[in-house]
Each structure stands twice: as structure tokens, then as C-alpha cells.
């Protein structure tokens, strides 16, 4: 069974919306308590535009998702996740292989770094997305291993000191809390794995 973009999209959106309160609570500890609200707003707008998105070939659909996130999220995560989807749309062919996905996600991670002037270990979404991109290209990835890695990398942001984003205002006191963007990245990746595995 070929993976169905509609199902992937609904799955990810539903997961983010369902976990919005958790994401907001994480942001309340080390930020401005809006990451869940922002992501929910963004993915609700994506769902509202679903028919239009699904009418497009994959690359164009991904760009449309990215642009909706850019326009609707309202926080720093909007242009960053927007850049993720816009770059995937630019890099992926209509029928991508795992190798295509690894390459496109690597490009997206670089684009997010540039957009946010950030690097790995700054306690951001990059600390989940970067390792996952590398793992997708290392020839050993399984659904289970990708899920495990995403989870482990989100957890790994807990002891980090934030260098970028609002959490950096807390300096040392940002240590001991999971980064909300790392958690939302984990949620998206694990949900994609779940859905793809169900279609496999």
C-alpha cells in the first residue's frame, strides 16, 4: 500500500493538536507558554486547507503546508517549521525513496539552521531533526529505530542550556526542561513513523 498523504497529514495534525497543552506547558517552563497554541493554530489551518493541499503533487503539497505554517503559527516556530516543509517540497521528487528523504531532510535541517541562526546543541527542534536526518541516511533506519531516536533526542534537550530562542533568556535555568520545539518535532516524526508503518 502506497503511503497516503492525506492520512499522514491528518495523523500529524491530530497528534500535534492533541498534544497542544503539553507543548504549551513545556513552553511555559522556559518560554512564553504558546508553542502548543501556535502549532495548533498552524495545523488547524493546514487541515482547513487539506483539499487544496491534497490536490497537488507531493512537492507542491509540502510547499503549501510550509507556507500555511509560515503564515499561521505566529511564533518563531512558524518560519522554522515552514522552512522545513518548504525545503522538503523543494528537494523531494514526487515519489521519494528513503535516500531522497534523508537527503531532503538534511537540506531542511541546514535551512532551519540558517533561518534561526542556530546550531545543534542549542536546545531546539534541531536537536531532534538533525540526528533523525543523519540516521535516515545511515542505512540502518527502521520505523522503530527512528521513533526511538526522536524520543531519545527530545529527552536529550532536558540537560541542555538553551542558546537560541526565548529559553536562552533563562540561561542556566533553562537546564532541566525539555525544549518544546524538540518535543513537537518528536511528535511529528513518531506519528509519521506510525502512519507509514501501518501502510507498509
Amino acid at each position, binding site marked *: 500500500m502506497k503511503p497516503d498523504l492525506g492520512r499522514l497529514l491528518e495523523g500529524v495534525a491530530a497528534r500535534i493538536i492533541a498534544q497542544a497543552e503539553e507543548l504549551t506547558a513545556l513552553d511555559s517552563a522556559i518560554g512564553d507558554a504558546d508553542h502548543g497554541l501556535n502549532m495548533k493554530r498552524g495545523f488547524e489551518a493546514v487541515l482547513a486547507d487539506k483539499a487544496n493541499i491534497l490536490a497537488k503533487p507531493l512537492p507542491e503539497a509540502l510547499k503549501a503546508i510550509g507556507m500555511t505554517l509560515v503564515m499561521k503559527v505566529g*511564533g*518563531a516556530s*512558524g518560519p522554522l517549521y515552514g522552512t522545513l516543509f518548504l525545503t522538503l517540497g523543494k528537494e523531494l521528487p514526487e515519489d521519494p525513496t528513503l535516500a531522497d528523504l534523508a537527503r531532503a531532510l538534511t537540506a531542511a535541517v541546514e535551512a532551519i539552521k540558517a533561518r534561526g541562526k542556530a546550531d545543534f546543541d542549542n536546545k531546539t527542534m534541531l536537536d531532534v531533526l538533525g540526528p533523525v536526518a543523519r540516521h535516515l541516511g545511515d542505512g540502518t533506519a527502521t520505523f522503530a529505530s527512528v521513533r526511538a531516536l526522536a524520543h531519545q533526542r527530545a529527552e536529550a534537550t532536558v540537560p541542555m542550556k538553551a542558546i*537560541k530562542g526565548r529559553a536562552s533568556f533563562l540561561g542556566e535555568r533553562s537546564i532541566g526542561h525539555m525544549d518544546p520545539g524538540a518535543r513537537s518535532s518528536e511528535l511529528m516524526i513518531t506519528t509519521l513513523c506510525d502512519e507509514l508503518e501501518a501502510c507498509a
Partner: protein
Amino acid sequence: MKDKVGIVIVSHSIDVARGTADMVRQMVGDTVPLAYCGGNPEGGLGTDVAKILKAIDEAWSDKGVAILVDLGGAETNSEMAVELLDAGRQGKVVICNAPIVEGAVMAATEASGGGSLEDVRRTAEELSPQ
């Protein structure tokens, strides 16, 4: 007025943006194209790429536009907005690495005096912490 660099104020708070614009107007009157925005697409604290694009358009000047932002998301969303402009406009917009209120007043004062986009940016950015 359109022979002066335009000023755009992008705050997480529409109140901060409006009040900053009031302070700018008090210094420079209407000699400078000026626009402001604040709030996420729902109106809460945050920023909104569509509103930023509209503000850039309102304050457009062929001499260029200087954007003043407050915290991280305002900067990231403004950078995104700039990339969504026509290629011809993109090179004429700068985002100042300066405090939003103090920087806007300084930048507008420089713009009002006929400074170039680079002058305006430098004036705002020279602001040592206040």
C-alpha cells in the same frame, strides 16, 4: 515623504507597536513612511507574516525600508516576510539589530534627515544598550 527611508515596527504586542509609532511620529511628524504591526494571526502576543508584509508595503519607499523588531519570533517572521517579497524589493529591506522602541525613534530621526538605508540601520544599531 517617499524620498525618505521607510520604517516598519514589528512587535509581539500591538500596543508596543502602536505606542512606538506614536513616539516616532512625535519626533518626525509625517516626514517618513511609517507602518507598524503586532500580534499573531489570532491577535494574541506574537507576530504575523501577512501583517508584516502589509506593513512593509504601507511604508514602502524606493530608498528602502528598515524594520525594527523586539524578540526572536518577530525577527524570524520578519526575515521570512522579507524573503517573500519580490526579488526587486528584497535588497531594499533591512532588519535592524537594535532595540525596538529606542531603535525606531533613532532610525526614524535619521530617515527624516534624509539618511540612506545603510545610515538608518547604522544609527539604530549604534545604540549602545540605551
